[in-house]
């Protein structure tokens, strides 16, 4: 075979190999590859009728020693994190209840839009067993905000603020014994790939505290899959 053709083929093969290697490295470098699948919980009456019900139970920790990062906190033990996973899978055309136990403190939101409960059934959530539609923007610990691509899939926007644990209840070591528990329910549409992230500026390193944990997948952000 002509040397030139062999050379061209070798270039293509080596190029494809390099691209595949980079892709494999990037995929393996994900901070959180686990997926938490919602637990089926019968059916529930909703404004859209009786729908299959599924639940997720997650927590927010002030550091990464809990959850998927392990007891030593993984690569960034000082990062605040959601857990036990940051990737979630829920069924399509179902009613989903997410319960978030927040062990972290907080300060002020830089946009009080996210102090309000949005996108849930009747626009409310349960905070420590009490109905709430918003909390003071200077008492927010974190938010759980789901959003996604604008084209090719149903719109899904859910944003719920998590009340911060009072500073006096944060112990020197370990987690508070008085976490704030927020529960909210929403309805999914057709199958789609979404993301979620925290809108409280709880990272460091860049403007408005959106660096570090806020800019690293697997801590305060992740994937939210609606499976058909």
């Amino acid at each position, binding site marked *: 075979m002509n040397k030139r053709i062999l050379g061209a083929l070798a270039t293509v093969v080596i190029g494809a190999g390099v691209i595949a290697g980079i892709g494999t490295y990037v995929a393996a470098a994900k901070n959180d590859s686990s997926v938490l699948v919602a637990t089926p919980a019968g059916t529930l009456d909703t404004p859209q009728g009786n729908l299959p019900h599924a639940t997720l139970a997650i927590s927010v920790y002030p550091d990464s020693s809990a959850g998927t990062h392990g007891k030593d906190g993984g690569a960034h033990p000082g990062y605040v994190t959601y857990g036990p996973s940051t990737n979630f899978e829920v069924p399509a055309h179902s009613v989903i209840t997410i319960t978030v136990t927040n062990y972290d403190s907080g300060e002020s939101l830089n946009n009080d839009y996210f102090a309000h409960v949005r996108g849930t059934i009747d626009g409310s959530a349960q905070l420590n067993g009490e109905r709430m539609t918003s909390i003071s923007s200077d008492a927010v610990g974190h938010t759980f905000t789901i959003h996604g691509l*604008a084209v090719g899939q149903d719109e899904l926007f859910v944003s719920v603020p998590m009340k911060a644990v009072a500073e006096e209840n944060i112990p020197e070591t370990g987690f508070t014994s008085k976490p704030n528990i927020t529960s909210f329910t929403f309805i999914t549409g057709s199958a789609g790939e979404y*993301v979620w992230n925290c*809108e409280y500026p709880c990272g460091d390193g860049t*403007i408005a505290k959106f660096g570090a944990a806020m800019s690293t997948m697997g801590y305060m952000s992740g994937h939210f899959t609606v499976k058909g």
Partner: protein
Amino acid sequence: MSNHLIPKTPQWWKKPDIKKTAILWAICTLVIGFVGVEFHVRNMVRPASETMSGVISLMRIFTWAAAPVAGLVGAMCLTALTTKRHYGDNPPPDADHEIANSPRAVGLWIVVSSFLCLFALIAGFIVIQKDSAELLSSDAIQLNVTGQQWVWTIDYPNGARSQDLYLPVNKPVVFHVTSVDVKHSFWIVQMGVKIDANPGYTTETAVTPNKIGVFDLRCAELCGLLHAYMQTKVHVVSQADYDAWLNNHAAIEKGA
């Protein structure tokens, strides 16, 4: 010595290379113009405002204006490759043509390029000027838009708020755009509206949507981890539907 014994050099435009280049130039211009307009411009989004229609028309005009330039370059390349190819180890003999070091040719090229640039500048200003007129409209709806990693929030004059954008059809809207963290860019794809969202500053842009439907609002500035997901929908509805939505959302916001 009589003049008739000297071989007569044909005038430059009668040379075979020039004729060939001229024919190729015409063909290349038509092909590039047609492909550029029909495949590129036609694949752009369907316009939902006069602004976007203006942008598409401008793209069409610019493509045809640029086609002769690209066509000439292509034609000269084809002529050189097909008739001026030189084989062998020795360099080719010096080219014999009149255009080398010709002040007339250089001057012509500068003048043509200048006119093309001036044309592009003036045509662009005309489209921008049309957009600016909407900013001054006294009956325009004034909306505050806030970009944040990685969601847009819209504040309406009556207190309603949303993360997707609702607009009435055929009514001018002015967007006051800012950011609370890093730089974003507010881009309504089908309406041809795009402006930076800078922390600490407010920028303004305006548009009059002229089609009812659902369109796309995206961030056009790489802004971090989930930049690709910083997009939402734009709902253009009738004035009655807009008023109903606005009042409903204002009531929800007050009750929250």
